[in-house]
């Protein structure tokens, strides 16, 4: 393993220490638990937006803390859901009197820990709702959507929910629009190189030098098919068509495109791919409303990328366009 770390068991704490120093103008850490919050949390009079999950997905999750985005993050170990106590402290730390919306990915650990934290907070009189992201079309067939993983689509939800909270929307409205944003969002990824897990020093999956995994998950979970490497255009077409047919996105739709690097795929390659995405969308008479490209939700240094499309409507456009000032996600 070649990584610039010290002791593997200290890496999360050391990373967080650096994160807080580097971004002291925007975030602070709770003294009691491994929870990072907006510096001015809890912001009175607005709904709190809370997320969290395993570490190793930088800039997710803590990079999305900030005005117009996320208020508090419960930080788990590498690829492991944060415990109940931590999720509960995140809820409390972001509650400014109007309740809290939990926005997290559909993984059994996250669902159980956030679910139990939600019940705990509710029993103490805090209004809490959850929106669970399940945008990965490769992770289960369409008739079993409740079994699908949440991947880069989580970014879309944080953007929408964060903007709504900032505007003063109430919790129930945020849940309703948040769930629509999630339903309208579909993703699929590919990887040719696993990440090395710093705790074990082992790759997250085994793969041949000339192979790639189509439909790979954000923790290196195997996808739907292992094939020989393809060109940028071939693999982009494969992913994009699967995503389009899933919702399905139809002629006349407007979409936000999110091309997400999984850790070690260059922006150069991603631009080649987004050009092909645009070409395919154009062939389907689907209009691009906005494009995000870069590393939004990685899997340590995994080599690969994902394609996410979100079908827009007037309300979603408003919240996608709203300004935000996250640590690693700023929009004017």
């Amino acid at each position, binding site marked *: 393993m070649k990584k610039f770390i010290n002791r593997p068991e200290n890496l999360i704490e050391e990373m967080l220490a650096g994160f807080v120093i580097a971004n002291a103008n925007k975030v602070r850490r709770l003294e009691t638990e491994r929870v990072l919050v907006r510096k001015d949390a809890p912001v009175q009079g607005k709904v709190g937006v809370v997320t969290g999950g395993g570490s190793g997905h930088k800039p997710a999750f803590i990079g999305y803390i900030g005005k117009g985005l996320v208020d508090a993050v419960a930080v788990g170990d*590498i690829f*492991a859901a944060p415990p109940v106590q931590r999720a509960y402290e995140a809820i409390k730390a972001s509650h400014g009197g109007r309740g809290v919306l939990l926005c997290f990915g559909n993984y*059994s650990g996250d669902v159980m820990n956030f679910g139990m934290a939600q019940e705990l907070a509710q029993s103490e009189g805090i209004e809490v709702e959850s929106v669970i992201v399940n945008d990965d079309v490769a992770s289960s067939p369409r008739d079993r959507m409740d079994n699908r993983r949440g991947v880069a689509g989580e970014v879309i939800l944080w953007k929408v929910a964060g903007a709504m909270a900032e505007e003063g929307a109430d919790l129930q409205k945020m849940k309703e629009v948040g769930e629509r944003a999630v339903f309208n969002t579909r993703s699929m990824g590919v990887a040719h190189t696993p990440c090395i897990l710093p705790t074990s020093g082992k790759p997250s999956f085994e793969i041949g030098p000339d192979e790639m995994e189509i439909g790979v998950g954000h923790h290196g979970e195997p996808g739907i098919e292992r094939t020989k490497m393809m060109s940028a255009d071939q693999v982009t077409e494969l992913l994009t068509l699967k995503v389009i047919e899933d919702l399905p996105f139809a002629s006349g739709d407007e979409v936000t495109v999110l091309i997400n690097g999984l850790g070690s795929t260059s922006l150069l390659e991603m631009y080649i791919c987004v050009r092909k995405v645009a070409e395919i969308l154009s062939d389907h008479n689907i209009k691009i409303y906005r494009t995000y490209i870069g590393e939004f939700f990685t899997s340590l240094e995994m080599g690969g990328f994902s394609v996410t499309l979100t079908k827009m409507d007037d309300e979603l456009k408003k919240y996608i366009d709203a300004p935000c000032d996250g640590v690693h996600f700023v929009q004017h």
Partner: protein
Amino acid sequence: MTEVIVLEKVKSALNRVVENLEKNRQYLNDLDSPIGDSDHGESVCNAFHKVKEVVSDSSAQDIGTLLQEIGRSIIFSGGAAMGPLYGTAFMDAGTALAGKKDLSREDLVKMWEAFAKGIQRRGKVELGDKTMYDTIYPSFQVLKQAFEEGKPLKEMLQAAIEAAHQGMESTKDLVSKRGRSSRLGERSRGHIDPGAASSYFIVEAFFGSLMED
């Protein structure tokens, strides 16, 4: 050996569980590699990391309270999927033994039934889903059967360990229906479920320790 289990015996059995999981940490990570993300050993050891501390600091006067304390600590500080699952199991086991200062053969069956049901309740799993339940439930069934047949405590425990082992092995031929590996469908077949394996190590250490004179 006597036919009752006292509080101190349960305490050392819990410590033994932690040691057995630590011992098999890397093996559990490796089992998790083909069908998960290679961190089951980390997750499960993390979930149990406070158990020894809770055991030594506990002022519980009865086994039910001790197991509830263990369960609560695993739920609140465990994390991953393992915290809620194993935490609920221990919590429910403790609830089933409320006020018990020692365990009869019958209490042991009750405890293990509650443990199994806790896993089922929290994980919404059924037998054959390729999960920890495939280890735990058969061990409960066999434990109960041995009790009903009037077998002595030691034989009950031995039979339950063997059933847990078979249960773990049975997951190899199953297709996963729960958790991260369920997204693999047919590709999950041919691998022992890491959760079923950690459950076996828990049964092996817990019951094995209780068997000792």
